[in-house]
């Protein structure tokens, strides 16, 4: 894959920088410069908090090229605290520990390497939220095995194509 494409998306991949619609206030990720809801131009960069929860997930056993060494790994739809739904790998977690509604947080990890001689590609993944100091791990909380109700009556947005698989 071309170096230029990675280079253009470093801010969104490393830092979860998206956009805010000046018209309707909607947060947009990944950045697309046009609000997917109201169609207004939206170019104001906003850094997301990195907090979210698992909306749905699947386990990849047969990986696309470049991801073979990670199998089996988990790809999830993560509902970010600011609203958008993003596709990303989960990390630091085993399949048996994942549940729908699990609180997760963004970490910057190695997504893949472009062969032995190519670039190392870094980007966002999500891991189970680490407990805040001296509290019981959140993973021990009651798992929710059903999809979450729609928060505040807001309809889930369509799944936007994330920068990386």
């Amino acid at each position, binding site marked *: 894959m071309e170096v230029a494409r990675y280079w253009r998306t*470093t*801010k969104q991949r*490393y*830092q979860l920088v998206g956009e805010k619609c000046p018209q309707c206030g909607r947060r947009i990720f990944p950045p697309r410069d046009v609000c997917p809801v109201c169609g207004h131009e939206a170019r104001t960069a906003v*850094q997301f908090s990195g907090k979210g929860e698992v909306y749905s997930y699947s386990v990849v056993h047969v990986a696309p090229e470049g991801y073979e*060494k*990670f199998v089996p790994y988990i790809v999830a739809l993560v509902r970010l605290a600011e609203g958008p739904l993003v596709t990303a*790998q989960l*990390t*630091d977690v085993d399949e048996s520990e994942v549940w729908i509604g699990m609180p997760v947080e963004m*970490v*910057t*990890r*190695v*997504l893949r390497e472009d062969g032995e001689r190519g670039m*190392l590609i*870094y980007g966002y*993944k999500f891991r189970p939220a*680490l*407990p*805040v*100091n001296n509290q019981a791990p959140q993973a021990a909380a009651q798992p929710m095995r059903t999809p979450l109700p729609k928060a505040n009556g807001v309809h889930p947005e369509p799944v936007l194509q994330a920068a990386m698989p």
Partner: protein
Amino acid sequence: MQLMKPVRPVGIIGYGAYVPRYRLAGQAISELWTAGNTPPPVREKAVPGLDEDVVTMSIEAARNALARAQAADPTFDPAQLGAVWVGSESHPYAVKPTSTIVAEAIGATPYTQAADWQFACKAGTEAIQAAIGFVGSGMARYALAIGMDAAQGRPGDALEYTAGAGGAAFILGPSEHALVEIEGSVSFVTDTPDFWRRQHEQFPEHAGRFTGEPAYFHHITQSVRALFAQMGLSATDFAYAVFHQPNVKFPLKVGEELGFKRAQITPGLLVNEIGNAYAGSALIGLTAILDIAQPGERILLASFGSGAGSDAFCLRVRRSLPTPHVWTTRTYVDRRVPVDYARYARLKENYIL
């Protein structure tokens, strides 16, 4: 010799640690290679996940340091960092800075200095020394110095028992907002070939017992004694001491030689739980101390890097800062997922497929 002290006072305004979650027991290594006949020098060591390296671990430690700096000084902004310096002996690229990736990920680009430092296990304190000078001279208001390693040890070698992973990040800045003031430092360096890794080699070589007396013990005692002499201090003036931690024995022994009691050393002694984090070893020990230290207390930090040298620092805690929203070093040390040797070999990519 002269005590190193900047023109204007410099302190640590934020710090953060990182340790990956996997652990391999020393006993597993002993059983695989010596039928369990070698007593392991550490109980277990930290192992990075398949998607972790010095870049990703540095980013997380740096984000923790930024969170503490923002709590200490609400006007602090990562764009004000005049330097992002990463010391390591496992930079993922041979040519291409780790530091630019870290700087981009934490929002310090584009107007900043960025460089990777290399001096075996003291690459991190080397970056701190430079950062003190950079801030203390007024060239930058803030500088970020990181010591981080995904340590390498050849399978079956003595180093495999201890080669761990992790490290810490420090934001140096003017001492008025600092959590810790740096009262003075000393660097002591000689050409001592106790441990090295040649270009294109995957694992380091070492000179066996030579790594002890003429290397580790000589350099640390010389740097610390010079610091004591220059500052008119002795071991009893310090609440804590933290040394480079290649195993459990060495830091306790060098501490004793310098007049420290075990109770001053154990709060920062993490090697039994995470192994030797090379350039991150002494520095992550320091973060464990900073998590519990009280205002007014003095801390001695003395690194050791093969090749060889030691940086000794006299630190004084100015204020304690409650930052319950930032993970402590203990949170990372206690977050552990034990793995067996087979899974470890997979994580280290030691299988040839």
